């Protein structure tokens, strides 16, 4: 497969372009009385040539890589027999079979038709790739030649190179925007397809969640119900339990560490609290399911309560512990930002340390703390692994924290893991839930970040 060597070849040629350009610049300089006669350093001329070789070629290569599948798929679909084309489902199945045959996977059908189509597919792909390879080399050659020719003492190579570098820097920082855009587009489109089948108000206000679609019309229990209220309720219950654990513990430990503890204690304990934030969530999930859930169940049995083996309590508790360092480090920052003058003023009036904290520092830091807590809530709502492993799948609409509930993230995972057709409402529902989750956390984050920033500006 020569195509896989294309990228290294481009890079290699780019590097050699650098050396060619540089040596030409040095030659030009020597004929005119030394390096000082050049507008830029020889390296800049080299870089200019190298970039001229690399950039257009890489651009074309990247473009092709990203559209290859869709272009080749389209070509092969156009060649398919007409009777196949009537149903989009069979076409995508057919394509899958072709690709599986090509990848050398064991295919279910030994249909010779598919074998032939697979060969055809490979051939189309090969042809396209040859064309692209040729185009890439032509591009490199042309750009290299033009740049190489234009190298002279007057060429402002440094300015050109720096403009290109700056453009690359801007592009890299714009990735953040593209990512957000990508999230919005990918979630939104599938969600819109979902809402075409299931009306929005049914999704947002319906009280039953049972995401199944009938394979046959006469199937028992075939009617899928997509009312997401129980899912939302479960999410909030678990998040609320988590916050009930995290806010007091996180806040108290932050206040204690920043106002009361001595330096030695602080430098020892703070990193230990941070460890809690560094433990992967899957570990918390395992712990919640294996240790905490049975513990709560046994304790519930002791008090005569019936506790589900996958109770909201276990997931919420463990999630709360996970969020403690988050709350405490954010509050810590905020408390540190309160100016020392406020403390001194309070002490000067004869207040004790506790009174200073209670009546001066805490009110002053409150907006920032609220901002931090909002961020923590968005974290709790979006947390996935703990709830996937320790909370249930049953969409109960209940206020009892000892019953099993389900959350948005759990539903997304269960609906999307495993092979699924991408046009059933069942999988699309995951994207609708994802949209809700994204919008909700976005609003929370936005408010929280604004509050925190505003608060910081106030004291700066």
């Amino acid at each position, binding site marked *: 497969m020569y195509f896989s060597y294309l990228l290294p070849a481009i890079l290699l040629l780019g590097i050699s372009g650098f050396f060619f350009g540089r040596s030409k610049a040095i030659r030009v300089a020597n004929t005119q009385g030394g390096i000082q006669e050049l507008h830029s350093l020889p390296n800049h001329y080299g870089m200019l040539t190298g970039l001229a070789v690399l950039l257009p070629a890489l651009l074309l290569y990247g473009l092709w890589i990203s559209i290859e599948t869709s272009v080749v798929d389209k070509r092969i679909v156009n060649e398919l027999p007409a009777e196949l084309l009537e149903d989009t489902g069979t076409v995508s199945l057919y394509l899958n079979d072709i690709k599986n045959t090509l990848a050398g996977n064991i295919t279910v059908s030994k249909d010779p038709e598919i074998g032939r189509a697979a060969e055809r597919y490979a051939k189309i792909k090969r042809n396209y790739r040859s064309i692209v390879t040729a185009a890439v080399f032509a591009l490199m050659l042309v750009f290299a030649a033009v740049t190489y020719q234009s190298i002279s003492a007057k060429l402002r190579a440094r300015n050109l190179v720096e403009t290109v570098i700056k453009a690359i820097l801007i592009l890299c920082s714009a990735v953040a925007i593209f990512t957000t855009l990508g999230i919005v587009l990918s979630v939104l489109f599938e969600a819109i397809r979902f809402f075409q089948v299931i009306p929005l108000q049914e999704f947002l206000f319906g009280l039953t969640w049972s995401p199944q679609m009938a394979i046959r019309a006469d199937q028992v229990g075939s009617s899928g119900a997509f009312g997401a209220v129980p899912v939302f309720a479960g999410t909030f219950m678990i998040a609320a339990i988590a916050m009930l654990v995290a806010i007091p*513990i996180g806040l108290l430990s932050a206040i204690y560490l920043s106002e009361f503890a001595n330096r030695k204690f602080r430098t020892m304990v703070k990193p230990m609290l941070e460890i809690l934030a560094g433990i992967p969530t899957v570990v918390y999930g395992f712990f919640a399911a294996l240790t905490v859930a049975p513990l709560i169940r046994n304790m519930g049995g002791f008090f005569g309560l019936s506790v589900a083996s996958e109770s909201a309590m276990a997931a919420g508790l463990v999630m709360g512990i996970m969020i403690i360092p988050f709350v405490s480090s954010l509050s810590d920052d905020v408390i540190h930002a309160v100016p020392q003058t406020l403390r001194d003023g309070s002490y000067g009036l004869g207040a004790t340390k506790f009174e200073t904290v209670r009546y001066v520092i805490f009110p002053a830091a409150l907006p920032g703390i609220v901002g931090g807590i909002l961020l923590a809530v968005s974290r709790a709502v979006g947390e*996935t692994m703990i709830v996937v492993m320790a909370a249930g799948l049953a969409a109960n609409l209940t206020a009892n924290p000892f019953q099993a509930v389900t959350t948005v993230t759990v539903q997304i995972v269960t609906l999307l893991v495993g092979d699924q057709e991408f046009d059933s409402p069942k999988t699309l529902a995951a994207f609708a839930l994802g949209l809700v989750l994204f919008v909700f956390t976005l609003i929370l984050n936005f408010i929280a970040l604004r509050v925190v920033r505003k608060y910081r500006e106030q004291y700066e």
Partner: protein
Amino acid sequence: MQPTESTNAFSPEFNQRLKRRYRAEQSFKLMGIGAIFIALAFLVFLLSTILMSGYSAFKQTYIKLDVTLDKEYFPDEDLAKGDFQGIVKASLYSMFPEVSGRRDKRMLNNLVSKGAAFKLMDMVEADPKLIGTSFSIWVPAKDDVDMLMKGNIDMDQPEANRRIKDKQYERIRTLEYGGRLQMRFNKTFFTSGDSREPELAGILSAAKGSFYTLVITLLLSFPMGVAAAIYLEEFAPDNTFTDLIEININNLAAVPSIIFGLLGLAIFINFWGIPRSTPLVGGLVLTLMTLPTIIIAARASLKSVPPSIREAALGVGASKIQTVFHHVLPLALPGMLTGTIIGMAQALGETAPLLMIGMVAFIVDIPGGFTDPAAALPVQIYLWADSPERAFTEKTSAAIIILLGFLILMNAVAVYMRKKFEIKW
């Protein structure tokens, strides 16, 4: 003005109030210490639970078999088609000649792992001259035997509720007294991929999958993150576009990780056609996820370089780009690397987005590249945690120990680098 009775510092009321105020302070301090204690106690509880339930997975029960590779077991030219299971069975029957009846035989055969036959096959394929000879070999025991040896099966339970029956127990004891049962270091755990049989399951394929994924993540997110940070910190004008980028980065840092998985599924897999379950697509998703972390760390690092450095470079005639790349960047690099390592540690522990892009597949083969289907360490933990066999609980904890080991290592390197290269201006 005369102090009134209540504000007089020598009045008993004042003293009482003062005492009350200090008591309030004491109880608040106690609450603070209590909160820290609860958090740390939980940390200790979590870590010790996992250590206690996981350390035993590094040992495994092995059984010594005397096997005879008679020629009759190899009717075919192809040695791989030999009846290795039969060889193992024959060896077991010769040890316990009194066993008869199908049920009894099955119970006996269930003491030895299926891996025994595979092990024999590998040996014969490596050295065909072994056929026709007899020798002794240590093979892994079935997971139930292993669990019994580690004390995880309660023999006081009624027989029907146990995975080890009375007869099996007797034979295990016989083997043990005969020196044919031994706890050995569990090499399989480090050298093989996933398996349905707990005693044959290992983390190598998951670890390699994680490695390839992280390589992609590092190669993409470090240069991109540093470039973005340089632009935002050194060049960006104060305009709406810059504001937009900053808002986006801050928001992305707080977007739930599972949303990145949805993005990967919809765009990288469905739209671009990158193969599912591969480190390539996993690395791309994790890149987008870790970028904000790296950008934020890199910016902080650039900010800490004093302006005098820039002014000096500009003063001797360097261009803005030269100033940044020749003078500011080298000084800020250690800080950036520290941030990147922490970002990588986060990426290593991330599970949810990988579930979305199909890295939950059951992968036996050890991936050899970026486009082979692979699992990742945290995903392997998730898969094992879901398995019903008791023996997988132990494996899960062991995998967690390994994962935490890597994380501790990465963070320790980051802390060391911060200490070593920290520049005091």
